């Protein structure tokens, strides 16, 4: 066990920190889940890209630095510590890109990765449908073969597409074999949202931001080269991405430490006036949990660095961080007392935190996965 960083890693951290200190906007940007905020965020992401900080672990050819896993983690830690803006490109960079690296053709990688890294092309995820939320295998949107044109015609509807109204591209699953049941007969498509026959309608989230979209497909044509990973292979290709989605949290071990520290600052300000003497320990426990999260991430990264591949254990992480995030913000609300009725960063954060136990597989489903695949309990 060695919890220190090498001189080279320390040097990398110094470089990251210096650049972020000089460049992170002094004023927080407007929410990236509004049209205006999204545009402002893209300007920031462009600056990241130009300085080669947008995808540090990627090959240089696509705008990266070929950073090691540990350097990548250092970058993410510093990024959170600096309070730098939320990454509105995350669905592309963290969900689609790993799939492209694993399943994409060289042509697809050359075509899509660099514009994704620069934010020139922005990606949203087309998984859910009105009748296929938790039950992802219930997808009914179809892709019908058009041999003559050498491609597919998409029909159906996707929904709860995060930032769908602002993105340029969508990746998603469509049923190519209408006879196949459930998770068979699905194919993974890459779809430019300006394709004729595609209509996007944004709608609001709990906190009022237009962060969701419905996407309608009315015989929208996509050529064969927009299939990722083989016709009919959509489910296994997508599951690789879903793994990344649940593992998104790998992004930064320091992710909740920053919130726990802000919570401690709020306590310093408000604690004496709060009615609940137990809040003191709630704040302490938030810090303990945030440290536990950070350390568990280091443990996972060690295993990955030594060649293991993360499996169903990512469900443990998803449940823990999403419920920790809710507790962190709930403690803040209780510290705010009557002021928790006002709009503000903590009440916004509270509403956002409530999505954590729902998205990317509800926590109920994650707990089933833990029970069945980590503990080995009987399915039925």
């Amino acid at each position: 066990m060695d919890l220190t960083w090498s001189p080279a890693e320390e040097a990398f951290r110094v470089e990251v920190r210096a650049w972020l200190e000089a460049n992170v906007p002094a004023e927080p940007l407007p929410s990236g889940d509004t049209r205006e905020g999204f545009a402002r965020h893209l300007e920031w992401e462009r600056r990241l890209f130009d300085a080669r900080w947008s995808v540090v672990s990627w090959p240089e050819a696509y705008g990266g630095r070929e950073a090691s896993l540990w350097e990548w983690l250092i970058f993410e830690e510093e990024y959170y510590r600096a309070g730098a803006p939320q990454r509105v490109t995350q669905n592309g960079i963290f969900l689609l890109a790993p799939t492209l690296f694993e399943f994409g053709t060289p042509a697809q990688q050359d075509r899509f990765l660099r514009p994704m890294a620069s934010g020139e092309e922005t990606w949203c995820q087309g998984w859910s449908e009105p009748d296929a939320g938790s039950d992802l295998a219930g997808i009914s949107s179809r892709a019908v073969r058009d041999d003559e044109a050498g491609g597919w015609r998409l029909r159906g509807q996707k929904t709860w597409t995060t930032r769908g109204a602002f993105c340029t591209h969508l990746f998603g699953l469509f049923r190519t074999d209408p006879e196949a049941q459930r998770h068979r007969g699905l194919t993974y498509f890459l779809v430019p949202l300006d394709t004729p026959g595609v209509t996007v309608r944004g709608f609001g989230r709990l906190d009022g931001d237009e962060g969701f979209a419905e996407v309608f497909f009315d015989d929208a044509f996509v050529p064969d080269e927009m299939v990722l990973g083989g016709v009919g292979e959509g489910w296994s290709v997508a599951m690789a991405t879903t793994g990344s989605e649940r593992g998104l949290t790998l992004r930064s071990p320091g992710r909740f430490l920053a919130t726990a520290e802000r919570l401690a600052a709020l306590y310093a300000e408000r604690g004496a006036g709060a009615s609940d003497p137990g809040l003191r320990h709630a704040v302490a426990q938030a810090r303990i949990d945030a440290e536990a999260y950070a350390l568990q991430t280091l443990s996972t990264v060690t295993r990955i660095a030594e060649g293991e591949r993360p499996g169903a254990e990512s469900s443990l992480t998803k449940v823990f961080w999403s419920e920790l995030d809710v507790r962190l913000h709930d403690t803040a609300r209780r510290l705010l007392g009557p002021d928790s009725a006002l709009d503000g960063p903590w009440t916004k954060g509270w509403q956002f935190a409530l999505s954590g136990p729902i998205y990317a597989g509800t926590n109920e489903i994650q707990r089933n996965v833990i029970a069945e695949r980590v503990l080995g309990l009987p399915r039925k």
Partner: protein
Amino acid sequence: MRFAFTDDQLAFRDAVRDLLTRECPPGVVRAAWSNADGRSGGAWKALGEMGALGVMVAEEHGGLGLTELDAVLLAEEAGRAALPDPFVEHTLAGAPLVATEEAASGAVTVTAASGRDLVPWADSADVLVVGGVVVERGTAAVDPRPAVDGARRLAAVEVAGAPPLRTLDPTERDLTADRLALGYAAQLVGLAARMLDTTVAYVSERRQFGVPIGSFQALKHHLADSRIALEFAAPLVYRAAYSLAHRDPDAPVHVSMAKAQASDAAELVARHALQCHGAIGYSDEHDLHMWMKRAWALAAAGGDASWHRERVARAIL
């Protein structure tokens, strides 16, 4: 010994429920999020006409001369409908103090706030009960603040320069604060019951994996816990109403028990309701969020659960 409401009280409750079902469907609540004053308009007028707004105003001033025990079920209904009007602030707290025919009928809207609370619907009310005085709204400085619940408009109110219509004595101030807390507790019970009903209906219908999602044990248990929380909150609220109506010296502690329990119950029911709805409930196009945000607002208003738990602790420890 009889721990139940009278048939008259239940009939009045039913009448208000029917009225609000008609006059305050979710569309009215939604409209209040973006209209000028966050108010219902029609529902308020209809409630005034049926006498519900003057239930605690003395008969000689045109009210019904009844008590908190008669008003508590009506507040619960106002909660169930997420009525975008200062029903509790007016009916339980303000109108009995103002004690005029206009207040009894709701032609004049009275709002009120206690403690560190901002004042709800201050900019559309006619009379404000704030900081121990009753003032005309026009004479006070009203400074709106952005609220999470877009219909329940909040404002900071400065009454220093306003000529008081009357000044409350300490007993009246305390009683008014307790009436607000009681009324909010009752509204929270109504809000929670509505969220639970809506969620039960939703999970019974919504199908995933080939079955209604309400057949999954995890969701069953979320909703069973919600039902239990309600079952053991409502009686405390009704007892607090009884104690206030009978000027029981323990009434303030009873109010605190009620408000603490109802606040926690409504928060819990809201959490489970959202989780059971999933992404559909997370959209602002679904009605759930309006009920949830009202529940959050009222859980924090009139003293939150911890404030009231502390008052219980002081009484028993």
